[in-house]
């Protein structure tokens, strides 16, 4: 299976390393050459420097043969545009997009894009943590 990951920050690089360990063939794209260091000293996959909205670069990165595309740059809008291009122009079935703003995450999810919103997850987890730590002393 081939995965293309756009954005090699903490999130993108961790996904890349995880998928690579699981046997995926992984290509990573980032605007910044230094981001390669996040993939460790012996990254066996491909790494390309450039912007994820550049269609020529996406082709060079093998988007046409990709089974999955992950858009995980630090820009919500960049991610939703890349995600839609992967879906609509390159017919990639599995496209996952990181969107920090819950409003935009919902809007694009309703339009058929698989969005993951870490902010919403954090809100839910934190709320749940508060609930459980308030309840437990009362129970004990």
């Amino acid at each position, binding site marked *: 299976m081939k995965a293309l990951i756009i954005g090699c920050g903490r999130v993108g690089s961790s996904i890349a390393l995880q998928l690579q360990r699981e046997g995926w063939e992984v290509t990573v794209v980032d605007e910044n050459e230094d981001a390669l260091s996040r993939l460790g000293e012996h990254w066996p996959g491909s790494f390309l420097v450039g912007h994820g909205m550049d269609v020529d670069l996406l082709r060079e990165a093998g988007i046409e043969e990709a089974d999955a595309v992950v858009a995980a740059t630090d820009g919500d809008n960049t991610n*939703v545009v890349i995600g839609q*291009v992967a879906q609509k122009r390159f017919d990639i079935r599995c496209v996952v997009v990181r969107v920090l703003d819950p409003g935009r995450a919902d*809007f694009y999810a309703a339009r058929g894009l698989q969005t993951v919103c870490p902010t919403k997850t954090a809100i839910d987890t934190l709320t749940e943590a508060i609930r459980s730590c308030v309840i437990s002393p009362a129970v004990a």
Partner: protein
Amino acid sequence: MYAVVAGGGKVGANVARSLLRLGHEVTLIEQQRDRFDRLEEEFEHQVQRGDATELNVLERAGLARPPDLVLALTGDDEDNLVIAQIAKEKYAVRKVIARVNDPRNQAHFDLLGIAPTVCATSSIMALVEHEVPEHELIHLLELRQENLEIVEVQIDRDSPSAGKRIESLDLPDGARLISVMRAGHAEIAVGATQLEAGDQVLAILEPGKEDELRRVLLRR
């Protein structure tokens, strides 16, 4: 008319000012603090500070009314794309105009159905093509929805079409000659029109037929 202008750089601020002078109601949205402070001196309550790709910022600017017109004029193409999509699809704004900063991103706007768009670089390049004579086939107009374009071709002495009637030319399917400009005077092109060196010919064609047309008219 009520217009929301996203992006208070040179383009957005000038457009907002022009719309206000025409008597329209305008809200300008700018994210950067220093730019916003400068704009506020001129536009007062008609400029709001915020990220125009955030729903609450757009709603504060009255997107739910909805406005008659939304102009996505920031310096970031991805932001303009998202603003245009949200305005059209979430708030059912009838008219959305988006600015394309990098002409290579035009394809993304087309893919996502954002039209009309304006790209300064493409407009300047079209003028350059028109002004620089060695470009023998000039793109004059792109009819995006119709999937057609209008080009101008300069016939010269070496052109195989010079001295021939239009009906005798083996024009490609999906291409027609519209008019012939000779000595400052234009005529509608008909089958009997004979092309001559120095003619400027307008043609309408499907994108991608340029090379075939060039071969028939200019053999290049």
